[in-house]
């Protein structure tokens, strides 16, 4: 059983009602499948623009496999400064 932490930022926290949660994923799960799972749970995310970060690195390849204790972040466009 692999448990990862998913974190949401900015306006995405309004849609999910959370800033973070732990998700149990299958052994061979890839980022793309977990993203699909998240969107199925929070359907309004489908209309949102966001970037994914895995363990503090911007995701370039959504076929990357997830491991125990990975941190996946969904970030909408930045609005600091």
């Amino acid at each position, binding site marked *: 059983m692999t448990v990862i932490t998913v974190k949401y*930022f900015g306006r995405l926290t309004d849609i999910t009602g959370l800033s973070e949660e732990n998700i149990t994923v299958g052994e061979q799960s890839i980022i793309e499948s977990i993203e699909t799972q998240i969107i199925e749970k929070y359907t309004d995310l489908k209309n949102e623009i966001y970037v994914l970060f895995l363990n503090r690195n911007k995701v370039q390849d959504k076929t990357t496999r997830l491991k125990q204790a990975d941190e996946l972040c969904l970030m909408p466009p930045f609005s*600091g*400064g």
Partner: protein
Amino acid sequence: MNINVDFSFIQGPVHIRTENEKSPKVGATAEFYGSIRADSIDNKVVIAIEFTAHKEIAEEACYSIMNSIALKYKLNSIIIKHSLGKVLAGQICFLVKVESAHRKAAFAALEEMVDEFKEKVPVFGKEIFENGSYTWKQNN
């Protein structure tokens, strides 16, 4: 060359300190203050912005940009502070300060750093209105 590069998040508003003496290697200092404007959106006035961030990713992204700009413009120093939490209209939430030998580098580095920060550092602002409602800030 020893460049002073420093970024920090501050809880609440940023307070400004100035110094009256500079290093003899510095000829130009340029500063930018970002402060909270009481914008009117749909007839509601912004009274505060509440900032959140992924601190670790933000720090890595910001230092990467700062180091790159410091080398590009041969800066003596580059200092950034950004607020987290609630900052009221009129208060300062963002400070960028650069020092260099000459003014052209200082002006150019300052503008580039502010623009890069707004585009690439994961900080998020919630604009809070007087009636308690809010909307998520969008940078342009």
